[in-house]
C-alpha cells in the first residue's frame, strides 16, 4: 500500500548508486561523456531538427542518435513509437540497468523528471490537426505516446520489468527532484531499489519559447562570465540505479558512489526569475548539507545550475557566496551547461551523473569558454581541465515556477 506505509526505519538506510546511464550531445554512454567533460569539449552546432531561420539564436547541442538501438525486450512496433526523447531515455536506462546488474522485476519503481515528455508527438499532432483536408491517421498513437508516463512504461518494458512510475515535472529542476524523490523512497523504507533520472529532447516549441524570452545566447554560453548573454539549449537523458547499501552488498555489486543529501524548496518570487538574493537557492543547499551531515568545507566541487542568463547566475552566485562563507574563495564551481547546453527536465539528472563521474575518476569538468568572472562570483570557476581530489560534490537545479533541488553525492572508496 502507498498508505499507510511501513514506519520508516529509525536509521535511514544509506543509498548507493550502482548504475548510471547518460546520453548528451557529447555522445552516448559514460565513457564518451566522461572523456568530453574531462577535456571541456563543447557540443554546440547549428540547429538541424527544425527551422530556426527566424529565431534570434541558431545553435543548440543536438544529440546524434545511433542508427540502430541496442537489443531490448521491446517489439519493432513499440520501438517505432519512440520519439527522440523516448529513444534517449531508452539508451540511458539500458546503460544504467546493465551497469547495475539488476534482474528484471515486477515491482521496480521508476521516478523520472521531464518538462516536455513526448512533445515532438504533440507538435506533429498539432501540425496535422490544423491541415486541410483533415487527416486522422496516426493521431491516436501520437495522443497516447505524447504522454511521459507511456514513454516511461515502455522504458521499463524494455528491461523486462514493470513497476510504479512517477513523473515529476518541476520544469528545469525535474531531474534533480526526481532523483531526490527516489532517494527519499529508499530512505523511508518504501523501496529497496529505484531507477531514476530525467530526459528531454529539443523541440521547436521549447526552442522558440526560450528564444522569445530572449533567454538564448546569440554568441557563446558562458555561465558566470561577466559577458554572458544567455543560455544554450541541449537535449539528453540520464538514469541512475539507486539501492540500499545493504542490497548492493548482498549482491556484491560495484558501487559507483553514494547519494547522501537532498534539499528542495520553492522560490515564490516570480514565475521565471529567481529571487535576486537567491534565498531559495540558499535554503536548498543548506537543507541538503544538513541531511547529508556535511558543511561547505566538505564540498570539493559544486556543479552549479549556471544557465548563463544574467538573472540566474547572479542570484546563484550570491547564494553560493552566502552559503559557502570563507570556503567560497577556494570552492571549485562550474556549470556543465557550458559544454552540453541546458537539458531542462534532464539537466538535474545528467549533472548528477557528471558529478558521479568526477567522484569516480577524480577530475573537474571545466567551462573552457569562461574568461571574465562576474563580480558576484566569490568562488573560482573551473575553466581548464584538471585532475582533483573529489570526495563530496553538490549539484544545483532550479526551474521555472521556482522549485529548486540540491543533491549531494559522496565518493565510494
Amino acid at each position, binding site marked *: *500500500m502507498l*498508505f499507510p506505509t511501513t514506519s520508516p526505519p529509525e536509521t535511514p538506510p544509506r543509498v548507493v548508486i550502482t548504475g548510471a546511464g547518460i546520453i548528451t550531445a557529447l555522445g552516448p554512454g559514460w565513457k564518451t561523456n566522461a572523456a568530453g567533460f574531462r577535456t571541456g569539449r563543447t557540443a554546440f552546432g547549428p540547429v538541424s531538427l527544425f527551422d530556426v531561420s527566424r529565431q534570434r539564436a541558431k545553435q543548440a547541442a543536438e544529440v546524434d542518435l545511433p542508427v540502430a538501438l541496442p537489443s531490448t525486450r521491446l517489439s519493432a512496433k513499440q520501438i517505432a513509437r519512440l520519439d527522440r526523447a523516448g529513444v534517449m531515455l531508452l539508451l540511458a536506462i539500458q546503460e544504467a540497468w546493465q551497469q547495475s546488474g539488476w534482474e528484471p522485476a515486477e515491482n521496480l519503481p521508476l521516478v523520472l523528471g521531464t518538462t516536455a515528455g513526448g512533445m515532438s508527438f504533440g507538435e506533429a499532432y*498539432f501540425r496535422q*490537426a490544423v491541415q486541410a483536408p483533415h487527416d486522422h491517421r496516426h493521431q491516436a498513437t501520437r495522443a497516447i505516446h505524447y504522454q511521459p508516463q507511456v514513454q516511461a512504461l515502455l522504458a521499463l*518494458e524494455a528491461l523486462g520489468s514493470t513497476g510504479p512510475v512517477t513523473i515529476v515535472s518541476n520544469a528545469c529542476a525535474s531531474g534533480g527532484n526526481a532523483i531526490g524523490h527516489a532517494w527519499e523512497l529508499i530512505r523511508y523504507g518504501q*523501496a529497496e531499489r529505484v531507477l531514476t533520472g530525467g530526459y528531454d529532447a529539443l523541440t521547436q516549441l521549447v526552442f522558440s519559447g526560450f528564444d522569445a524570452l530572449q533567454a538564448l545566447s546569440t554568441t557563446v554560453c558562458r555561465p558566470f562570465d561577466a559577458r554572458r548573454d544567455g543560455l544554450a539549449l541541449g537535449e539528453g537523458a540520464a538514469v541512475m540505479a539507486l539501492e540500499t547499501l545493504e542490497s548492493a552488498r548482498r549482491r556484491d555489486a560495484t558501487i559507483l558512489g553514494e547519494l547522501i543529501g537532498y534539499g528542495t*524548496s520553492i522560490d515564490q518570487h516570480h514565475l521565471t526569475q529567481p529571487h535576486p538574493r537567491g534565498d531559495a537557492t540558499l535554503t536548498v543547499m543548506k537543507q541538503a548539507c544538513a541531511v547529508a551531515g556535511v558543511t561547505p568545507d566538505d564540498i570539493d566541487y559544486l556543479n552549479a545550475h549556471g544557465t548563463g542568463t544574467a538573472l540566474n547566475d547572479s542570484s546563484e552566485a550570491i547564494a553560493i557566496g552566502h552559503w559557502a562563507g570563507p570556503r567560497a574563495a577556494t570552492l571549485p564551481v562550474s556549470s556543465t551547461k557550458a559544454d552540453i547546453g541546458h537539458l531542462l527536465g534532464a539537466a538535474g539528472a545528467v549533472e548528477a551523473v557528471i558529478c558521479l563521474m568526477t567522484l569516480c575518476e577524480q577530475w573537474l569538468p571545466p567551462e573552457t569558454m569562461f574568461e571574465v568572472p562576474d563580480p558576484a562570483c566569490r568562488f573560482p570557476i573551473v575553466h581548464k581541465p584538471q585532475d582533483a581530489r573529489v570526495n563530496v560534490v553538490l549539484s544545483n537545479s532550479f526551474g521555472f515556477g521556482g522549485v529548486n533541488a540540491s543533491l549531494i553525492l559522496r565518493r565510494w572508496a
Partner: protein
Amino acid sequence: MSRIFVAGMGAVSPAGWKLADLRQALRNGEPLPVQTLQRPGWQKPLRTRPIPNPAERLEFLAHPRLRRASPITHYVVAAALEATAGLRASRDSNLRLGLVICLQSGCVNYSCRFFEETLKDPATASPLLFPETVFAAPASHLAAVLGNISLASSLVGDPAAFLQGVALGAQWLEENRVDACVIIGAEEINWILADALWHLERPAILTAGAGALCLCREPEWSTGVELAAITDAHTWSSRKNRTQAACAMREQLSQSVFLKPGRAERPLGPAAQQRRPATARDSELLCDGIGSSPRVDAAEFAAWRDWTGPRLSPKRILGEGLMAAAAWQCVAACDAIAGGSFAAAHVALIGPNQQAMGARFVRGDSDISRLSAGPSPGNIRA
C-alpha cells in the same frame, strides 16, 4: 505512523466554482448540458462541458501573478483556496503548507497558442505565453497566492496519478515536513485536447476544472474525514492488462477493510464532532470512474462486478475531466462522508494508459478501521 485527516475540500467543475455546486449536480444526478467547441479545419464540432462563468468576480484574480495566467491556474487557485479556507481562517500564517499539483494534459491552451504563433512566425511569438505552458506554472502561481508554501511538486501521469499525489502529501505530513498539504488535480479545455479525446474515447465529453483535498495530521483541523488507505500503483504491462490491474487494485483495496472496534487514539475536535450527524449511515460508498464509454469502462465494471452497495459515478454527470475528474471523485467521496451520508467510501481510479489505483476514506471517528493488521511491508519494494 500518523493518522491523516482531510482538513478541507474544494472543487471547480462544469457545475460551478464551488464544492456546493459539484455536490448539487451530483445530487441531481442529471448529466450537465453539453456545448459544442469548434476546431480548426474540421466542420464537425466537438462536444464539451465548459466551466460556467463565476457568478461574481473572483477576488483572487486581482493577484498580480494571475493577470496572464491560463484558465487551469484559475481553477487550481479557486479549488485550493476553498480547500484551505478553514485552515487559513483559523491558523497562524506560519503554517507550513505543502502543495502537490497533478496533471495529465496541463496548460494546453497557452501551449497551443504559443505553438500556433511559432509556426506562423517564431520571431513574433509572444514571450508572455511560453512560461505559462510549463506543467509547473499553476503550482508556481498558487504558491505565490498562498505565500506560505514550504514544499511543492507537480506530478504528471494518467488520472490515477492523483492518488500518487495524495500519497506524497501524506508522506510529507508523516515526515513532519509540512503542517498541511493541499493536493490538486486540474485540467483545462482546448480544441486539441477535445480532438485527442475524440480519437481515443469517442463517446466521452471533455470537461475541465480542478478538485482539491487539503490533508492534515491534526484531528481538530479535520472535516471528520480520515484517509484510510491508498493502494499500490498497479501498472499495465505486456503481462498485466488494464482489467487485471483494475482487479488487483480492487483486491488490495478490499483487504484494507475490516472492523477494529474501540479505536480512539486521538479524539476529534469539537468542531468536527458537531459536523457529524447522529443519523449517519454506516454504509460504504463506491465513487467510481465510470463514464460513457463501454470499452474504457469495461475494466472498472469487471473489477467491481460484485459491488452491491451505493455507487457514485461523477463522470456520468460532469464528463471526462482527466486529472480533474480523478480529484472530483476523491472530493465527492470525502464530501459524502463529511456530510454524514456514509461512514466510508472507496475511490477507484483506473487510468487509460498507466495504472489503476484505489483509495479508501472513512469517517474520522468511525469504528470502521483504516487498517488493523498494521502497515503493509514496503509497497514498492523491488
